[in-house]
């Protein structure tokens, strides 16, 4: 704590979309309470800070750093190490830092194939000299360096020691406030815990629907069917609710969209995607091998469906690299 009794807070974004920053603004009028309780020492998205300001701090200077975003390149990792050094409590804030999230689906590819696609192959690309980003370039004023993109997207916990994990894409405002209050009140659980979410429930427990049918003979993607006002899973719409941690308030199913799994694996689940795969297979209405193969064969893109938010944190982390360096 600072001499004025306020919490010294830092916020940072690595490979992320900015939604986690918006989630903090979603605190609305409570943001004034946050301002009253905390001095913000670092928040590049909202205020003007330089990395050298952080480097100049003594070690452990900030009480809490909320770190959102995955580790996609060397800059992200460098900042993860720096902020760990300068903070007492480092929080992986949001799905990207927690388990890789949407940027983590880049783990279905590698650096070279992503560069080829983005800079050479897309129909809207005009790049006759086939220029691909370089990590260093000689200018008259001197040599400039830019960060190096990794083959594999990592979670914050895979490159640094993390104290707490706040799930969600993005974390919901009431949950964020609960975490802030816990920090201010010193009511934090054991290191390594998931906070700002349910300790023991799945999204199905929070959902307004109850599962009734246990037999599904055809699977649909959300745009292929107009859902009725009952359990979406029962209607053959793949919903990640059974394998996902509660805490969001089942916002998606509330408006007729299936859960996509952003709050991460439910408690005691090791690998969210394979748990969801099991849940889907268990409702297949087939008594012969041929029938079962036909029905589950309709599931398009199993990894994108089952591991949408957690591929880097999953058991295998990524698709096999053709050439391991």
């Amino acid at each position, binding site marked *: 704590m600072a001499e004025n009794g306020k919490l010294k807070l830092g916020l940072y974004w690595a490979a992320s979309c900015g939604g986690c920053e918006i989630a903090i603004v979603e605190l609305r009028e409570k943001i004034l309470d946050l301002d009253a309780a905390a001095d913000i020492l670092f928040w590049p998205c909202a205020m003007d800070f330089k990395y050298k300001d952080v480097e100049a701090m003594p070690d452990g200077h900030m009480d809490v750093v909320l770190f959102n975003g995955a580790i996609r390149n060397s800059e992200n990792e460098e900042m993860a190490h720096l902020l760990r050094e300068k903070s007492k409590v480092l929080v992986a804030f949001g799905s990207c830092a927690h388990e890789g999230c949407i940027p983590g689906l880049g783990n279905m590819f590698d650096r070279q194939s992503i560069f080829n696609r983005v800079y050479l192959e897309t129909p809207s690309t005009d790049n006759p000299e086939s220029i691909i980003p370089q990590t260093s370039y000689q200018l008259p004023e001197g040599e400039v360096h830019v960060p190096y993109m990794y083959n*594999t997207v990592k979670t914050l916990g895979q490159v640094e020691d993390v104290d707490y994990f706040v799930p969600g894409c993005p974390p919901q405002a009431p949950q964020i406030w609960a975490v802030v209050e816990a920090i201010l009140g010193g009511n934090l659980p054991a290191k390594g815990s998931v906070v700002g979410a349910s300790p023991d429930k799945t999204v199905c427990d929070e959902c307004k629907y109850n599962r009734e049918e246990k037999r599904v003979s055809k699977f649909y993607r959300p745009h292929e069917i107009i859902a009725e006002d009952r359990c979406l899973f029962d209607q053959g719409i793949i919903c990640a609710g059974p394998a996902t941690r509660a805490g969001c308030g089942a916002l998606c199913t509330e408006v007729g969209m299936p859960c996509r799994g952003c709050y991460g694996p439910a408690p005691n689940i090791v690998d969210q995607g394979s748990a969801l*795969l099991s849940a889907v*297979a268990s409702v297949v209405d087939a008594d012969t091998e041929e029938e*079962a193969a036909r029905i*589950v064969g309709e599931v398009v893109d199993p990894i994108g469906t089952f591991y949408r938010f957690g591929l880097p944190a999953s058991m295998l982390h990524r698709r096999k690299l053709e050439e391991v360096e």
Partner: protein
Amino acid sequence: MMSDNGNGFEPRIVGFCCNWCTYAAADTAGVSRMKQAPNVDIIRVMCSGRVEPAFILKAFKEGADGVIVSGCHPPGDCHYDTGNFKTFRRMPMMEALLDQYGIEKERFHWGWISGAEAPKWAKLVNEFTEQVRSLGPLDWKRQLQSKED
């Protein structure tokens, strides 16, 4: 314990065998001294329907070059009536998942071997071992430790 001695790669294969059928077949194949490759490490499970997809992924992650899941013939042979139904509903999706992970389909086998089919087990072990041997090591741990610069 086998290891790659530098010139000869010995595949490491994990076999999930159900207690009531395939494990009995493997046991019979052993006591009958049928000639089998020594590359399959058997894990006895009560039912092939007990094999969660995460078990298979973990086997690959921890260094398996191939995985076998084998249970009782459907319909009717299952000790629990419909445990093997769960297997055949899950495994086709598991095949699609492994394909997306870039794990060759020849590294994963699932099927049925009854307690009376010991020669079938021995034949599967020999053929599958050679199939995996020809693919070379999977070495998933090395995937995870790949250098980034």
